């Protein structure tokens, strides 16, 4: 064979191999055609291809071998063998007479094979697997043959790795919302493949091979429908890359893209010149442009420029076609990777800008993501938690600091039912082992088929809020407790003075002291009300339900207010229409009743106050009816709000905290009853509370 012809043949083979890779829809569909092509080119009848998967060499495909050999398990790196030797030495291994060597599988010799060649498949100095060919005849492999085999193996390696990255990228594109995918891509692809460097070496070697001065990829931008130059380039400045853009029907670049065929131009046309001038690319006299095609899609154009007119020859066109097929796969993976990397960056930026901890878990409750805020809150670095079980690391404790069981945890619940769960005041564990109170939201992540594939946990450290709330409670409790004693003491002394224990008190002094007694009582009431509100809000108000004689409580309470009623010349009485007992806490019932009666006394100037009990279904209703000033419908609505006090000319003189009715309503509700009122301005009001009958 003529040397030139042989070179062309080799190029043709390389082209065919990259074509096989470009046509393959996935990795499994790559192996067989790839190996077959290699065997055909090398004119042998048996061979195998193995890739490195962790610590093993895994056979992906074999041809012409006995079943026994085909089914041999993956070879661990610990086991010496011809294949691992090829990996370690990075050099082809040749065994001419298998019957004399022990390093290869004995089964090969048994199967009648005579010789073997194993070569490493390498991409950028990295061995990704080995390719072996076997011959039954006695073969003498020439150095040329070996070199060709190495080139083929490396071409195959590039095809495999491009496809593998494209596969990982493609797979994950569909699941971009999934954080796991983002992580996987950044890890696997980036370490697998340095796109920048690979693309540069491709464009540089193509440019050199074609004796050009400059080379650059231009990719089609679907947004503005322009072909735009992309870095890395060979021989162009960043600003030239930035400014090189052309319409997809403009000049050589546009035509190569549109028509999908490589174009050579010995002299530049006006359109192409304008395009180059826009980017201030000067001195170009001739150029080559070939489309970058992956499967049926054209991604863009690869271009090589020369300062010499007529630099390119016809054969160069064919060469560029071959090389561009390979380049297309890498460019495709690269642009996909870039997009995904950008998306990942955006997602990361978004997540890390959130002040709340964000954690993602997969279906197995393993942590697959933790953002910066989450690291800060938990004290863990994301890497320490990735792949670990959520409950086994951060855990989850109830308000009582009891660990949440795995089956009943909100995590399982969300993963099972998909409904978001919000929990407050549960505890998580920091890296230090300390528990901290957190506000947590669990929500499911779905894949494209609407299947739950994991969950997002957003959590906030509420230690501060917790302490604040506790401090507030303590403050209220201390303040009220500490205030009560002095108020009681003042009241006691005033009482002693007014009773004459310290000598006779009369006239204006007595009037003033009586005024002070009233003010002091207001203070006492306020403190009691605040304490009650605090307890209700904390949930520490205790209610002891028991069979209670409501009428008895009414009698007792009436006694306390008879004097006050007499002072105002009001008729205070009870009308007991039922003797039924209720299920209630007597102390709370007395509290509510006292409040209703004292309110009635405050807002009634003449007439009567009547307490009526009656049965209605399973309830007993108690009504406190007055003939006072009444309440307008608008004000009736506001009445049960906290600190609600109706202020008008008639009520200005009347003191109160505006907490009483709110407290009453809560207390009655805690006893499974209701509070309501009926009122007409100027005629009077009726306040009701109902309680369940005792059974």
């Amino acid at each position, binding site marked *: 064979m003529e040397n030139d012809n042989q070179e062309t043949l080799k190029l043709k083979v390389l082209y065919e191999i990259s074509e096989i890779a470009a046509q393959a829809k996935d990795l499994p569909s790559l192996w067989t055609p790839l190996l077959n092509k290699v065997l055909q080119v090398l004119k042998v009848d048996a061979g195998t291809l193995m890739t490195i998967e962790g610590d093993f060499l895994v056979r992906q495909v074999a041809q012409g071998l006995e079943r026994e050999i085909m089914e041999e398990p993956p070879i661990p790196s610990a086991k010496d063998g011809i294949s691992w030797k090829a990996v370690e030495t990075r050099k082809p291994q040749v065994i001419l007479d298998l019957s004399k060597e022990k390093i290869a599988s004995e089964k090969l010799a048994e199967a009648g094979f005579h010789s073997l060649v194993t070569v490493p498949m390498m991409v950028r100095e990295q061995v990704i697997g080995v390719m072996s060919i076997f011959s039954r005849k006695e073969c003498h492999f020439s150095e040329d043959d070996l070199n060709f085999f190495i080139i083929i193996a490396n071409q195959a390696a590039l095809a495999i790795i491009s496809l593998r990255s494209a596969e990982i990228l493609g797979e994950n594109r569909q699941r971009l919302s999934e954080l796991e995918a983002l992580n996987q891509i950044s890890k696997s692809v980036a370490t697998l493949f340095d796109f920048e460097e690979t693309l540069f070496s491709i464009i540089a070697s193509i440019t050199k091979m074609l004796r050009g001065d400059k080379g650059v990829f231009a990719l089609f931008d679907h947004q503005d429908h322009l072909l735009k130059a992309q870095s890395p380039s060979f021989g162009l400045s960043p600003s030239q890359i930035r400014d090189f853009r052309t319409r997809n029907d403009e000049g050589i670049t546009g035509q190569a893209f549109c028509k999908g065929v490589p174009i050579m131009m010995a002299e530049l046309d006006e359109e192409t010149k304008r395009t180059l001038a826009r980017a201030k690319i000067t001195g170009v006299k001739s150029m080559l442009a070939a489309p970058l095609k992956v499967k049926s899609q054209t991604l863009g154009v690869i271009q090589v420029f020369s300062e010499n007119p007529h630099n390119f020859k016809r054969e160069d066109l064919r060469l560029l076609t071959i090389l561009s097929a390979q380049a297309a796969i890498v460019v495709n993976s690269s642009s996909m990777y870039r997009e995904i990397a950008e998306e990942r960056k955006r997602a990361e930026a978004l997540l890390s800008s959130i002040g709340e901890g964000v954690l993602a878990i997969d279906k197995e409750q393993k942590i697959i993501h933790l953002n910066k805020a989450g690291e800060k809150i938990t004290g863990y670095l994301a890497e320490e938690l990735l792949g670990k079980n959520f409950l086994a690391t951060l855990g989850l404790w109830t308000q009582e600091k009891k660990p949440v069981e795995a089956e009943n945890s909100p995590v399982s619940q969300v993963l099972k039912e998909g409904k978001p769960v919000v929990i407050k005041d549960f505890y998580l564990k920091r890296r230090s082992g300390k528990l901290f109170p957190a506000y947590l939201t669990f929500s499911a992540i779905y894949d494209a088929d609407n299947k739950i594939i994991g969950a997002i946990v957003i959590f906030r450290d509420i230690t501060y809020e917790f302490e604040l709330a506790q401090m507030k409670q303590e403050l209220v409790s201390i303040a009220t407790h500490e205030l*009560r004693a*002095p108020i*009681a*003491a003042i009241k*006691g002394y005033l009482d*002693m003075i007014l*009773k004459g224990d310290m000598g006779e008190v009369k006239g204006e002094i007595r009037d003033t002291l009586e005024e002070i007694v009233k003010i002091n009582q207001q203070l006492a009431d306020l*403190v*009691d009300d605040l304490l009650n509100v605090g*307890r209700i809000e904390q949930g520490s108000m205790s209610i002891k339900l028991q069979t209670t004689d409501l009428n008895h409580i009414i009698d007792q309470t009436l006694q306390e207010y008879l004097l006050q009623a007499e002072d105002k010349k009001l008729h205070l009485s009870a009308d007991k229409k039922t003797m039924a007992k209720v299920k209630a806490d007597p102390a709370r019932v007395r509290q509510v009743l006292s409040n209703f009666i004292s309110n009635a006394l405050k807002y009634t100037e003449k007439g009567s106050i009547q307490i009526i009990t009656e049965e209605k279904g399973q309830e007993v209703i108690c009504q406190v009816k007055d003939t006072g000033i009444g309440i307008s419908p608008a004000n009736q609505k506001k009445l049960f709000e906290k600190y609600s006090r109706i202020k008008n000319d008639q009520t200005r003189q009347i003191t109160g905290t505006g907490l009483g009715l709110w407290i009453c309503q809560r207390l009655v509700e805690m006893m499974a009853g209701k509070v309501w009122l009926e009122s007409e301005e100027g005629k009077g009001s009726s306040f009701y509370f109902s309680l369940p009958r005792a059974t």
Partner: protein
Amino acid sequence: MAGKGKILLIEDDVNLTRLYEKKFTKDGYTVAIAYDGWDGLKKTITEKPDLVVLDIILPKLDGLALFKKMRSQTETFNTPVILLTNVGDEDAIYECFKLGAVDYLVKSKVTPDQIVEKIEDFLAERGK
């Protein structure tokens, strides 16, 4: 004055103890004072009071626990106790009643006169 009897006042608030001490003394009682639960419990034996006026919230030993201990020691098994309470101490009051407290008075509602009235009523009842 031989007096009407001895009252042990167990109350941690100084203002209130002074007030009640003044009132009780004026009305002819002998008064012993304890400011915390432990001291109070000790004095229920050493002072041999005719009646104990007991606050519920107390340092060192709260009123309810003190009351339980009183009921479990022979010297004080029968000593009458009037509880001095605040609004909201209902649970403790309930417990104390089960243990046989004589009565309870809510500090912010009751006047010194009313306390003395209670004491007098009770001691008179007992004297019969």
